[in-house]
């Protein structure tokens, strides 16, 4: 026993040594290319060095009152089994991460949870979440207390909805001061008339249960029978609430045959000036002929894009089905940026960025502020300095040379953009074990002047894949480009991991 213990201590020292070398090397590379304070880290902890799950579709929330406290999520099974799915938790600003099982799930789940997004309230005392529960697919709204993070309480549950996207805050002053406001955008197939775009909201989510959630149907126009899955809410501290979504107007092709194309969709922005209490009808189009007089500004009409069941080689194994993100300036709720994706010649999905400075009434254009072809997973955020950030993932090259390149584009004014390449990894390996390969979304948030983000990518330990530096917690040999198990010697196959960055 003594011999074994000694050997394990040596192994552990070796592991720490390897990690340190990697971290130092990453920092050294980063000093050449990356801005000061840049951190990029593989979030899989050292004790899970042997894991090979497809940890895709990541999301992130940062405690606004204490940016050292960060929660990340992804399709990750509970490594210890049990009926709770995990989240990734950092208490030191993302420098190290642990995995903690707190999400209601089903015993033995291979994915931990279905779609999941989380958000802290403004004071950081509570963490809210929206999930599709593993095992049942039910849409569930969750809450737990920080900083202890006991297993999350289910506040509401219902079937038949998709892609919950969570945004929470706390009323800072005035009427309702101190109340937690939670907005979960989703595609609710139970909505009447096929107008499925919905913001489920609670205007006082911090007390109870019971916690009252109301479903606000933000789609006001005729659809093809339903809308797309993305509904992205964001709320300013003055009570201005926005949401962006695709209104589906026409389709062609077959979903089972993986040929479905949304041939006409409107990119719609809705707004409510009283924390959502008014039903998101404050942004209306002018009457005919300039508009249709209905709530919801159609920023772009009639866009087209594939809505794929399965990712293909042409799309880097990732299924494509549109992408939308919206961000509001933290110092001026009239300034709002919007990113969306559509199909363009030679590009399966092109990400566009535009801006409104009058609360969504008029938008920049006809040209884009930024255009990125063959890209998806757009995520916008605006820092307190006014700097705009766009995270997105782009396919480049073909065949064996095809790569997923993850970009953080930043701009002080929306006109001049600086590209920071976070990762450029092979798109053909590892082979996907399910759809989506890297996730139907990633996420970017701004707290103060900093951006915090998360994305999923191939985890091969190769410095060339991370041109601005990288830190691994799990055991890895960057010379042989091999992941290593907890014993720091057995090789581990490459897989998809979540990566955190801040700048």
């Amino acid at each position, binding site marked *: 026993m003594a011999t*074994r*213990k000694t050997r*394990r201590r040596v192994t552990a020292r070796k592991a720490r040594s390897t990690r340190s070398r990697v971290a130092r090397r990453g920092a050294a590379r980063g000093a050449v290319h990356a801005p000061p304070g840049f951190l990029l880290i593989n979030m899989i*902890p050292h*004790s*899970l060095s*042997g894991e090979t799950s497809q940890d*895709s579709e990541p999301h992130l929330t940062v405690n606004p009152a204490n940016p050292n406290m960060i929660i990340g999520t992804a399709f990750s099974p*509970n*490594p*210890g*089994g*049990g*009926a*709770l799915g995990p989240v990734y*938790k950092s208490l030191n600003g993302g420098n*190290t*991460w*642990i*995995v*903690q*099982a707190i999400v*209601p799930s089903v*015993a*033995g789940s*291979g*994915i931990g949870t*279905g779609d999941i997004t989380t958000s802290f309230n403004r004071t950081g005392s509570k963490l809210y979440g929206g999930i*599709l529960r*593993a*095992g*049942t*697919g039910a849409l569930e709204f969750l809450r737990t207390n920080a900083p*202890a993070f*006991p297993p999350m*309480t*289910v506040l509401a549950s219902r*079937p*038949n909805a*998709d892609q919950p996207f969570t945004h929470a805050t706390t009323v800072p002053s005035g009427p309702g001061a101190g109340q937690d406001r939670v907005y979960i955008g989703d*595609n609710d*197939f*139970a909505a009447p008339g*096929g107008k499925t775009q919905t913001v489920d909201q609670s205007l006082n989510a911090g007390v109870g*249960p019971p916690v009252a959630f109301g479903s606000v149907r933000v789609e006001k126009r005729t659809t093809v*029978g*339903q809308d797309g*899955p993305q509904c992205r809410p964001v709320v300013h501290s003055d009570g201005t609430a926005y949401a962006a979504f695709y209104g589906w107007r026409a*389709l*062609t092709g077959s*979903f*089972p045959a993986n040929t*479905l194309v949304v041939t006409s969709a409107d990119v719609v922005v809705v707004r409510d000036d009283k924390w959502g209490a008014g039903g998101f009808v404050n942004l209306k189009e002018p009457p005919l002929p300039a508009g249709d007089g209905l709530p919801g500004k159609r920023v772009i009409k009639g866009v087209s894009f594939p809505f794929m*069941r399965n990712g293909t080689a042409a799309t880097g194994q990732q299924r494509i089905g549109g992408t939308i993100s919206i961000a509001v300036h933290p110092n001026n709720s009239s300034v709002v940026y919007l990113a969306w994706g559509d199909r363009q010649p030679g590009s399966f999905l092109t990400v566009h960025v535009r801006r409104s400075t009058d609360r969504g009434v008029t938008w920049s254009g006809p040209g884009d502020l930024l255009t990125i072809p063959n890209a998806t997973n757009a995520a916008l955020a605006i820092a307190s300095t006014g700097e705009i950030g766009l995270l997105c993932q782009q396919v480049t090259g073909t065949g064996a040379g095809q790569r997923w390149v993850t970009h953080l584009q930043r701009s002080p004014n929306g006109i001049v953009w600086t590209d920071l390449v976070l990762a450029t990894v092979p798109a053909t390996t590892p082979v*996907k*074990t*399910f*759809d*989506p390969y890297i996730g139907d979304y990633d996420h970017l948030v701004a707290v103060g002047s900093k951006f915090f983000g998360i994305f999923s990518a191939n985890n091969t330990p190769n410095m060339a894949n991370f041109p601005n530096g990288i830190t691994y917690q799990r055991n890895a040999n960057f010379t042989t480009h091999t992941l290593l198990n907890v*014993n720091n010697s057995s090789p581990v196959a490459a897989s998809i991991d979540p990566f955190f960055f801040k700048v």
Partner: protein
Amino acid sequence: MRDSRRLMEAQHPTFVFMGTVKKLKKATMSGVPVDERTAVVRVDQIVEAPPDLTGYLGQNITVQLAGRHNVRVEEQLVFHTVGWMFGDSVAVRSLREESAKSSRAAMLRPSDDPVKRRAQQHVRGRFDAADLVVSGRIIAVRLPKGPTSQGHRVAAGIHGPITEHEPKWREAILQVDEVLKGAPPGRRLVVKFPASSDVMWYGAPQLHAGEEAFFMLHRTEADPSEPSGAKPRKGKARTTGTAEARSYRLLDAADVQPCDEQNGFRAILEAASAKHKR
């Protein structure tokens, strides 16, 4: 908080080990909230474990004790736990502890594979939860007959809403050979399984014509992929309601066990049978 406690109590242990308490009110990793129920425990023997925890034999880990009785330093106990936190080290939550001297788990041979034993426990759980367990052969796999669809869904080629999580249901016709649990409505059963590669259906077994196996079948009242408010209009049954209520589903890979696993599934069957007789 009460909800959290109920959730914990509803869990089944996944990491069972004999260990020696080395320290109280201490942890092996940062990030663990330390209180009077926190202990550092050396793992002496692993009885049952998921793969990621087998490497901790002989190592100290953190245990949040169930708190039902006092624990002393150097006391050896069998811990029935579930995974909790994973960082530089590992922390688990104990659902219960028992004396190593009296524990049945402690009598198990150390050479037995703890991962295999965990897998068998999972299969046993699926057996216990199944409405019907049979051996048999898949004689055909076909597309299900769907309910009347709305226009856009017909155009898109599916019956439910267009969603990336659409299950892509398939129906397998199962010719029953032997009934091991429950009472089948006939010798031929219709078994639904999702053929989708979407994440929500990850791990579901994929059936093929000619396949022979043991099948643990679960009846499901509601189809999670069914659209609409799912409430029938007054006086009208849903188009699929009756058929759905009768059909069986396969959603867990462990629900299909190969026939040639004589020492695997047969042993589980015998254990389950003995348990039912008791």
